[in-house]
C-alpha cells in the first residue's frame, strides 16, 4: 500500500513536470488536432487529400469568426502531427493531442490501417471519429464496436461492384466486348477490391483473360501491361495505388494498349494525373469521383485553389472537406462541444456539404461515389451508390 502511494506521489510529480503548468482558462477556441502522414509511404496521398483541406477548413471557419457554439462563435485552432505512415506513431500522437494539447476534436488520419489503429483510442475517449480515408467492407462490424466511428468514403464492395456494373452497362450497350484484364496492387485496398471485383465481373458475364498482382511501389510495369496486351482484352481494370496508377497509365500509353475501357485506382482523380497525361487521360476511369458541376463543388474547387495554392482532387478531397463540414455543423446544431451530444447529432442528422447531403445510416455514409472518368479535362463521377449527377461513361479512343 505504502509502496503504491509512493509510486503515485513520484509519478504525479513526474507528470506535473512533464505536462508543465497547463493554465486553466475560459474556453474561447475550439482545438482541433490532426495526425496524419507527412512522411512515409502514405504521405503522397495525404498531401493531396488531407492537409490542404484542413487548411481550407480552418481558413473558412475562422474567416466567419469561428464555429457557432450556442450564442458565441469560437474559432478553431489546429494542431498538426506527423504519424510517419505508422500506426504506432498515430496512436501516440492522438494520445498526445487528447491528453496534452487537450484538443476538443480529432480529425481522422489517412489510410484504412491507421484509422483502425486509432479507433480504439478515440472510442475510449469518446471522440467522434469520422474516418474518411478508410475503405473497408467491415464497416458495420467496426461501427458496432466503436459507436463513435463514422465511415464516409465507402466500401470495397461498392467500388469493385461499380466497376463491374459500369462495364456491364457499356457492354450491354455494345460499346465494349466481353474480355477483361484485371490487375491489382498487393496492398490492402487493391487486394480487397480485386477479391470482390473479380467475382463481380465474372458474375456480370465477363471473361477475365488476364489477372495478376504486383507489389506496392512497383513502377516498372511493362510486363504487366504487355501481359495484359497479349491477352487482347476489351477492358483493362487495375486496382492500383498512386505511383503505380501513374506508371500503369504511362506504360499503357507507350505500349498503346488498345482497350475501350481503362480503369486505374487511387490517384486517377488527382489533378496531377490530368496534368501528366493531358489529352491521353480522356476516357480513363478511376476510383471515386464527384459531381463537379454543382455550384457548391465549383465554389469549393475555387476556394481550395485560392487558399491552399493547389487544386483539389476529384474525390477524397471533397469528401474530406465534407467530413469537416459535418463536424462543424454537428457542433453548431448540438450547440456544444460535448462529445456524446455531437456524436448523437452526427448519427441522426443530415448535413449540407460540398458533396451534397450526407446522412449516416448505422454510422456509415451509404451513398458515395464509386467510379469516375476523365472527360474533357474534368473527372466526372460516373457511378455511385445512389447519388445524383452520374455522368454517362464514354469509351476510350486511343492514347493521343
Amino acid at each position, binding site marked *: 500500500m505504502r509502496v503504491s502511494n509512493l509510486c503515485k506521489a513520484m509519478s504525479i510529480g513526474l507528470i506535473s513536470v512533464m505536462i508543465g503548468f497547463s493554465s486553466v482558462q475560459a474556453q474561447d477556441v475550439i482545438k482541433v488536432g490532426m495526425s496524419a502522414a507527412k512522411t512515409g509511404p502514405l504521405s503522397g496521398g495525404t498531401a493531396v487529400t488531407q492537409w490542404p483541406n484542413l487548411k481550407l477548413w480552418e481558413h473558412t471557419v475562422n474567416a466567419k469568426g469561428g464555429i457557432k457554439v450556442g450564442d458565441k462563435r469560437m474559432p478553431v485552432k489546429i494542431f498538426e502531427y506527423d504519424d*510517419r505512415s505508422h500506426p504506432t506513431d498515430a496512436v501516440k500522437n492522438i494520445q498526445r493531442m487528447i491528453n496534452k494539447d487537450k484538443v476538443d476534436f480529432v480529425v481522422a488520419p489517412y489510410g484504412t490501417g491507421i484509422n483502425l489503429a486509432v479507433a480504439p483510442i478515440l472510442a475510449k475517449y469518446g471522440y467522434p471519429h469520422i474516418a474518411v480515408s478508410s475503405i473497408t467492407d467491415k464497416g458495420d462490424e467496426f461501427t458496432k464496436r466503436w459507436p463513435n466511428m463514422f465511415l464516409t468514403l465507402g466500401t470495397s464492395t461498392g467500388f469493385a461492384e461499380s466497376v463491374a456494373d459500369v462495364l456491364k452497362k457499356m457492354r450491354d450497350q455494345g460499346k465494349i466486348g466481353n474480355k477483361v484484364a484485371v490487375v491489382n496492387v498487393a*496492398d490492402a485496398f487493391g487486394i480487397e477490391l480485386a477479391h470482390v471485383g473479380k467475382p463481380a465481373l465474372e458474375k456480370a458475364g465477363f471473361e477475365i483473360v488476364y489477372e495478376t498482382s504486383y507489389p506496392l511501389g512497383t513502377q516498372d510495369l511493362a510486363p504487366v501491361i504487355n501481359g495484359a496486351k497479349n491477352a487482347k482484352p476489351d477492358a483493362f481494370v487495375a486496382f492500383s495505388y498512386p505511383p503505380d496508377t501513374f506508371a500503369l497509365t504511362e506504360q499503357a500509353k507507350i505500349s498503346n494498349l488498345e482497350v475501350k475501357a481503362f480503369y486505374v485506382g487511387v490517384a486517377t482523380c488527382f489533378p496531377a494525373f490530368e496534368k501528366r497525361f493531358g489529352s491521353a487521360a480522356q476516357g480513363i476511369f478511376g476510383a471515386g469521383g464527384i459531381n463537379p458541376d454543382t455550384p457548391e463543388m465549383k465554389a469549393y474547387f475555387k476556394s481550395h485553389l485560392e487558399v491552399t495554392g493547389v487544386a483539389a482532387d476529384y474525390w477524397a478531397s471533397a469528401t474530406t472537406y465534407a467530413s469537416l463540414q459535418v463536424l462543424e455543423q454537428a457542433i453548431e446544431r448540438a450547440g456544444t462541444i460535448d462529445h456524446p451530444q455531437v456524436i448523437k447529432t452526427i448519427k441522426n442528422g443530415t448535413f449540407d456539404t460540398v458533396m451534397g447531403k450526407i446522412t449516416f445510416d448505422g454510422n456509415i455514409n451509404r451513398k458515395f461515389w464509386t467510379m469516375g472518368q476523365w472527360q474533357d479535362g474534368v473527372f466526372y463521377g460516373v457511378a455511385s451508390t445512389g447519388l445524383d449527377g452520374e455522368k454517362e461513361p464514354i469509351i476510350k479512343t486511343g492514347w493521343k
Partner: protein
Amino acid sequence: MIKITKDEIRILLYMVVAVAILACLPLLDQGYILSLGLTIVMYVALCTAWVLFSGPTHYISLATAAFFGLGTYVVGIGIDVLPFPILLIIAALIGGVVSGLVGIATLRLSGVYFVIFTLGMAELIRQIVTWIQTNFTTGIGLYVLTDFSEAHIYWMLLALTVLIFITGWLINRSRLGFAMRIIGNDETVAAHVGIDSAKAKVLLFLISGAYIAVIGAILAPRFAYIEPPSAFNPMISFLVVIMSLMGGTRTLWAPLIGVVPFTLLFDMVSARFPNHSSILLGIAFLLIVYLIPDGLIGRIEGITKRFSKKKERTHE
C-alpha cells in the same frame, strides 16, 4: 564468476524498485504519458533484444522488422483461434526458427554485407507474406480486435523487457556470454581457445530474434489492423539500430540510455515542429554522431571513470 556479487544484488534491487515504479505508470495516467511510456518500453525491449546479439558480435542486424512482423502476424492469424499466451509462445518459436535459419545462412558474412543481407531478408519475408496473403487469402489486412488496453500491453512489454534483461544477464554469466566477449575481442583467439563462434552467434541471434517476435506479437493488438507495410516497417529496424548505437552497445543497459532521450526528442520535435521534424531530426542526428561518438554510455563511462580516478587519487 558464478557467485552473485554484492553489486549484482544491489543492481537487482534497484531494478526491482525501478520496475515496480514503472509498473505503476498506468495507474496514474491512461493517456499520453502511458502512450509515450509504451513506445519507450517497446523500443527498450526491441533495442535490448537487438543488443543481445549485436552488442557482443558488432554485427548490425536490420532484420528486426522481419521478426517483429512475423510475431505480429502470428497474432493476426491466430487471435480468433488460440489464446493469446499460446500465440506469444508460437511467435517466439517462429521468430527463433527463422532467425536461426537466417543466422546459419549469414555466417560467412560480416560488416556491411551482413547489414544489407538482413535488410534484404526482412524485405524478402515481407514480400513473401504479402504474396501469400494476396493469392491465398481474401484480404491483406488482418484484424486483431481484443480487449487489451494500452495498460495491458504496457505491462506485458515491461514484463518482457525484464525477461530480456534477465536473459541477457544470465547469458553474460554463462559460458556463452564469456565466449561472446572473447569473440568480440578477437575472433582468431576465440577459435584457438576452442570456441565455435558460428554456433555461439547463431544461438544468440536466435534468442534475439525470438524475443523480437514476441514483442511484435504483444504489439499486434495495439495495431488492431495488421498489414505488411506496417508490420514489416523497415523503419523499425532502422530506429532500433540508431537508438541502440546512440546509447552504446557494450552493455545491456546502454540502449536504455539511448531510447529514452531519443524517443522524447523525437516526440518533442514532431509535436512542436510537425512540418520540419525531418530537418530537425536530421540535424539532431548529425550532432549526436559528432558530439557523442561512443554512444551515450561511452560518455557516461568516461565521466564516471574520471570521477573514480579522482577518488582513487584522493585516497592515495
